[in-house]
């Protein structure tokens, strides 16, 4: 008997995404993004995102089925992001998922967005995912997690105290007039810049911080430092600013991730979330993990940003581990704690 087929739905922010997996094989990963509609507002507008989700939901489901050469009758379970995220956006996906599950009379897994980001790695690398330290970095999240069991036990070691890493990229890109989203623009510009040109601050890395908040992040000081530098230096070299700013973020993310590996004795690191697509983060992570003897895994770039395959992947892991499905009636939770991997 072949492994069960799980359809995953993700609508926590501005991507309407549906993925289908069979066991650990990716069959479809379709993403309809409303990012262009948000660009002129300089960030995601929740109501615009929610309307776009409703509009794109059915075509996205149909495209995923088409890509995988399946019909809905072949689906064994439905998985959906229940949180964290924008509540109005989440509810479109949740309602579409409960409609499917009831219509098909199949189980539903209401899962955590952050856990899904980590679990997508299991589609890329053919080995047990846990235990591992996970660095989750995106436009909405910057968390350092200890994953003892991806289906039952994730502990938050630390998180950002202010902006998410991706948000800092967006804000600096806005000040430098590079457009939205800022991550890819800064990454591209930094390729030709000198990362050591400007010594921007690394948040929460004083010796006192290492005592009291070893695994937390702060990017607001860095953001202010960059803004001040730009103001004081009218003829600034764009590429150098981009490279130095990016270096400051990447450096501190990896310093704390490796410190977490060392302190817990876990010699494995998974980096996930949209910022994991950043080329400097990937390159420096490979370098430092190699030196420290840590097994590094970063999902393929297309699976780092929000997608449905990651939700399907976590659903698939739930099925494989014989975890009980979620009740059919549940609410989206905009601030679902990372320790709650699936709703029961």
């Amino acid at each position, binding site marked *: 008997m072949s492994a069960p087929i799980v359809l995953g739905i993700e609508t926590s922010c501005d991507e309407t995404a549906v993925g289908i997996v069979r066991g650990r094989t990716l069959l479809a990963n379709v993403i309809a993004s409303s990012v262009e509609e948000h660009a002129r507002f300089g960030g995601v507008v929740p109501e615009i995102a929610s*309307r776009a989700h409703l509009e794109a939901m059915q075509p996205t489901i149909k495209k995923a089925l088409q890509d995988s050469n399946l019909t809905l009758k072949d689906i064994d379970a439905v998985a959906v992001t229940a949180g964290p995220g924008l*509540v109005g956006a989440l*509810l479109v996906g949740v*309602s579409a998922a409960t409609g*499917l599950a009831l219509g098909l009379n199949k189980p539903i897994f209401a899962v955590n967005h952050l856990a899904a980001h980590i679990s997508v790695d299991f589609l890329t690398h053919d080995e047990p995912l846990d235990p591992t330290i996970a660095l989750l970095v995106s436009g909405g999240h910057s968390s350092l997690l200890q994953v003892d069991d991806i289906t039952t036990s994730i502990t938050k070691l630390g998180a950002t105290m202010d902006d998410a890493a991706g948000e800092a990229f967006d804000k600096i890109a806005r000040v430098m007039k590079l457009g939205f989203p800022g991550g890819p623009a800064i990454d591209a510009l930094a390729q030709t810049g000198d990362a050591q040109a400007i010594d921007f601050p690394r948040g929460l890395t004083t010796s006192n911080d290492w005592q009291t908040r070893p695994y937390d992040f702060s990017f607001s000081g860095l953001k202010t430092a960059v803004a001040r530098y730009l103001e004081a230096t009218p003829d600034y070299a764009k590429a150098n600013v981009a490279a130095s700013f990016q270096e400051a973020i990447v450096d501190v993310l990896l310093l704390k991730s490796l410190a977490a590996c060392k302190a817990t004795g876990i010699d494995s690191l998974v980096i996930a979330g949209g910022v994991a697509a950043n080329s400097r983060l990937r390159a420096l992570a490979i370098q430092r993990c190699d030196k420290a003897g840590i097994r590094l895994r970063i999902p393929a770039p297309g699976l780092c940003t929000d997608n449905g395959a990651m939700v399907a992947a976590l659903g698939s892991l739930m099925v494989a581990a014989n975890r009980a499905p979620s009740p059919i009636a549940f*609410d989206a939770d905009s601030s679902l704690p990372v320790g709650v991997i699936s709703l029961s």
Partner: protein
Amino acid sequence: MTISLAIDTSTSRTCVAVIENGKILWSGHKDGATAHGPALPALVAEAIVGRTIDEVVVGMGPGPFTGLRIGIAFARSFALARNIHVRGVCSLDAIAAQVTSKDFIIAVDARRKEVYWARYVDGVRVGNPAVSFPSDVLGNEIHNNLFPDLIALVALAEEFAEPIYLRHPDAVATADR
């Protein structure tokens, strides 16, 4: 003989019914302006036990957006899963169907101290629904505390693809700030 699953989430009440030939086979509702998410699947799970559903009919608003979308997203997916048709209705029309007066107005909460409303003469809606402050809605007979009648919802259903929003999303372009 068509058995319809009727759903409306455009008001503070989540309404579900199973209707055959204008008769209610099952009906249920749950009140709560933010309860639609869990309420709808719970009601539908009960409604469909032992029944074959032939079509889905859903209220397309106007109504508070988040709740409204829950009903529509659910209805479309359920229909897709069963490979059946989904039809829509202006929710105000399904509310108006219960009133027998010659000339009246139906109004529902639109948040921000406004209402969604429409006028009905001889049982027929006059023009498109609108959103206004209650003080700007003028009429001798205004009904503002009724919920959709799901028998009427099914009777009035047509090919109706888009939700009735009546408001643009609030957002200011960075260029205009």
